[in-house]
């Protein structure tokens, strides 16, 4: 049911955890399943230096979180804001249709964290 990439990111999720004194924190709760993701950012000169996440959710949600973190570390805030949920799912080699919503958590939570950073540093 899941691609090898999903299984890889699920089994060995990258960047799990918390950043103390994070520059931005955001979270997203899935309206369809109640699953939840929290993202912590470290930002320097508009560049995302580090990302950590905590996820309560299914295999797809955890893999999406991990993939998202890999995709945006080292990117500019704008590039990170441009990241879409579909891009996360695509980078995982696709998700089964009923699991597509799970990847929505990742980009959305990231964007919340960036918004939080921008608001607190405005």
């Amino acid at each position, binding site marked *: 049911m*899941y691609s090898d990439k999903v*299984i890889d990111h*699920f*089994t060995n*999720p990258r960047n*799990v955890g*918390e950043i103390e004194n994070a520059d931005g924190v955001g*979270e997203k709760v899935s309206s*369809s*399943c*109640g*699953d*939840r*993701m*929290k993202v912590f950012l470290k930002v320097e000169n508009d560049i995302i230096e580090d990302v950590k996440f*905590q*996820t*309560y*959710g*299914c*295999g797809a*949600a*955890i893999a999406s979180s991990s993939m998202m973190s890999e995709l945006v570390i080292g990117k500019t805030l704008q590039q990170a804001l441009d990241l879409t949920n579909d891009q996360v799912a695509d980078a995982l080699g696709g998700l089964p249709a*009923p699991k597509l919503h799970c990847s929505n958590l990742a980009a959305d939570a990231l964007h919340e964290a960036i918004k939080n950073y921008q608001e607190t540093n405005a």
Partner: protein
Amino acid sequence: MKRIYMDNNATTAVRPEVMEAMLPFYKEHFGNPSSVHWAGRETGAALEAAREKVAKLINCAPAEVVFTSCGSEGDNLAIKGVADAYRDRGNHIITTAVEHPAVLNSCKYLEKHGFEVTYLPVDGHGMLDVSSLEAAITDKTILISVMWANNETGTLFPIEKIGAVARKHKICFHTDAVQAIGRVPVDVDAAQVDLLAISGHKIGAPKGVGALYVRKGVRLTPLVHGGHQERNRRAGTHNLPGIVGLGVACELADADLRNTAQRLSAMRDRLEQGLLAAIPESQVNGHPTMRLPNTLNISFNYIEGEAVLLFLDMQGIAASSGSACMSDLEGQSHVIDAMGVDPMMANSAIRFGLGYDNTEADVDQVLEILPNIVKKLRDMSPFYHERDAAKATANS
């Protein structure tokens, strides 16, 4: 990696004795049991021998056994068949909120066709209150359908008491015994059951065969109309090899019911105690004592069941989160929901269904692997961390 199959409530492997008994009926003795020539006579005799074996396991007359293609068909035939045949007497059906979808969706279909259905609630152990069932009876009630054992939690319903109530009020009583059969003693006479559905693939017979017990005198409109098979109660050429297999599986179940139940419940209890001890904030869903010997439904707070199953799967352990036929779907189990389990606990519910082939070593392996999986997932869970934070604040 050793593979461990602990999803025997979803389906079981065909038992070797069953396989051996079926083999001659595919290529060698393949006649249509309804045919009058030699090819049909051979299989006709095998058909009736199998019927006797099924009848013996549940203590009924062979003529009261109707072969079907699966448990779902049996439930549909019982519910829609009685509803149609007794429509002149009333249009009210009583069932529970925790039935298998085969029962629930048959009832929902009937609701669209002029029937009224009462879905009785269950308590925190998934148990039904018989007095509330009796209170729900009206003069329009024509059918009570309550499962013998719940497929997700293993909770055993008080079938004999329900049977007595149904008989007192002269209402047909159907029970979905798909999970109960071969695991606990089932006696349709003692339980005063009028219809009872079983499925082969849950007891070591193959997929594609089941049976419905229909008490003599109970009227039943067929679900599958056509030829005169099964005394006009189920048309279609008999699945002879499958039926032969079901017969042998029933015979085997009859022979070692108590032993198997004891062996499996000892293993199940060890698994349960071990997990509860190793994993704080876990809980068993289902009745503490009135429960199938092979079933353990357990929740580990703060994490999601699907993720647990995926990790187990990657280590070769097959378990599930509720019924297989729902598992491609979103959302929580209607059974755990109906028990009023806290939603986050409910989300992490996973089910182990032990079976004939499981060993103590299998239990050891799950006990070794699962606590680490839970730890890993909890480390990832924001809820778990917030809970620690909340505790720390409280303690400071």
